[in-house]
């Protein structure tokens, strides 16, 4: 069956049985379950190569299942047959946390795979995706996660709200690490880690619903002008963004999708029964899509007639919507135990 942009990887760390992590491939058009990868302990997500030829999957295994010696690898899967075809050993330091897209990312050209480590010392493992080899571990003390900004650059977010801007050479080693000024107000209204990228801008939302862009410029990383996802009246009604994978973006339509719910402060991880859609050029909401079921994770396909996928960690149902009209198209049952991240192939 030929690959389709309307397929989606539903990643699942299977919280009640964390050794049984898995990634499930589902066809959003037919609703058909296409296959599954079994991906080890505390699984985060698959990282499909940009040329579609291989799927990278950073994984953790213990020699006796739930005890014994820990080994971390990047498993390579063949996308056509969903079978493991190799692995790359990496330091057994991969951060174990509630799965986030920014736990591991490819550089913009797909050359290097970056993996966030937490021991609790913080660092980033660099893997050469082309040569399929471990390159180096870059110390990123005080800073977390990886947000690619170019073919040889990424940033991490630091505990004081500044960004650590990291540059790589062609072998994947760090050539420079510099801290920006604080981009986020950690003390009063932190940005969540669940940013999404549109062109040269990373879009982050805060607990209170402010959108804080981070722009990639030739001069370095810069704060873009902030704007609010909610009107003053909506804030009085306690509308705010929330969820696990709470944002999605469609570059072609220049739109941002945000899971929204009504709740007080500190409900930033709550699911929502609406997805609000924003025009990024106008910087305002253009649509409210009602969710059939509470949504904690959303993803939008990249093509010109995009689908919107929605899932929730406490449910096995994957919901599929037309991302433009908002119409609910189908619900697919039995997709995972505790689904976390939705990834485009």
């Amino acid at each position, binding site marked *: 069956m030929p690959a389709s942009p309307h397929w989606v990887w539903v990643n699942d760390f299977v919280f009640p049985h964390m050794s049984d992590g898995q990634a499930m491939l589902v066809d959003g058009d037919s609703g058909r379950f296409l296959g599954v990868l079994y991906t080890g302990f505390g699984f985060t997500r698959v990282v499909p190569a940009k040329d579609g030829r291989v799927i990278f999957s950073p994984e953790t295994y213990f020699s006796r299942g739930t005890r014994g010696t820990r080994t971390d690898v990047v498993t390579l899967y063949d996308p056509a047959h969903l079978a493991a075809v190799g692995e790359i050993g990496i330091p057994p330091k991969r951060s174990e946390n509630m799965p986030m897209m920014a736990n591991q990312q490819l550089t913009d050209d797909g050359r290097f795979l970056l993996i966030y480590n937490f021991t*609790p*010392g913080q660092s980033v493992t660099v893997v050469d995706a082309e040569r399929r080899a471990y390159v180096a571990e870059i110390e990123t003390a*005080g800073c977390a996660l990886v947000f690619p900004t170019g073919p040889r650059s990424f940033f991490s977010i630091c505990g004081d709200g500044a960004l650590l801007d990291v540059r790589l050479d062609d072998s994947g080693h760090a050539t420079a690490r510099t801290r920006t000024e604080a981009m986020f107000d950690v003390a009063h209204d932190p940005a969540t880690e669940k940013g999404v990228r549109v062109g040269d801008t990373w879009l982050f939302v805060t607990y209170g619903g402010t959108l804080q862009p981070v722009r990639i410029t030739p001069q370095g990383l810069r704060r873009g002008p902030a704007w609010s996802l909610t009107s003053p009246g909506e804030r009085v009604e306690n509308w705010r963004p929330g969820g696990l994978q709470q944002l999605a973006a469609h570059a072609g339509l220049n739109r941002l999708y945000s899971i929204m719910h009504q709740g007080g402060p500190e409900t930033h991880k709550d699911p929502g029964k609406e997805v609000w859609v924003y025009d990024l050029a106008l910087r305002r909401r253009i649509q409210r899509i009602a969710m059939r079921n509470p949504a904690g994770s959303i993803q939008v396909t990249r093509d010109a007639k995009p689908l919107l996928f929605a899932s929730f960690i406490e449910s096995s149902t994957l919901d599929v919507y037309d991302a433009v009209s908002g119409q609910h198209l189908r619900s697919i049952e039995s997709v995972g135990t505790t689904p976390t991240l939705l990834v485009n192939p």
Partner: protein
Amino acid sequence: MSAVGAARLAAALAALLLGSDTALAYQPQVNYMLQCMGCHRPDGSGEPGRVPSVRRTLVRFARLAEGRRYLVSVPGAAQSRLTDAELAELINWMMDHLSDLPATGIAPFTAAEVTRNRRPPLIEVSATRARLIDQTR
């Protein structure tokens, strides 16, 4: 007003002020608990191979200018939710209570010194620490 009455009034005013961060000055051992203990452990011994022990390095580093800058700018300290004065007080307390080596002859940290050296937080942490350990053998 009697002395007892004045003391009670002062206590009542203090109670009213408790909602404000700036009115509170926590004891340094309390700040250690909230900002450091989670990784460095109650006695500062850390976790071998993962979290450094502070017990044998605090005083050694504090004898060197670069060591003092390290203690203030290492991200765990620099990014903590402490004012510059509180961070100075905390490091002084740690040298007195969590150090295997006595802090005799070490100049106490001051808020001004912390202000000068805390920001931006240190990036090259491991290499700096290794060099300081080498220099203070």
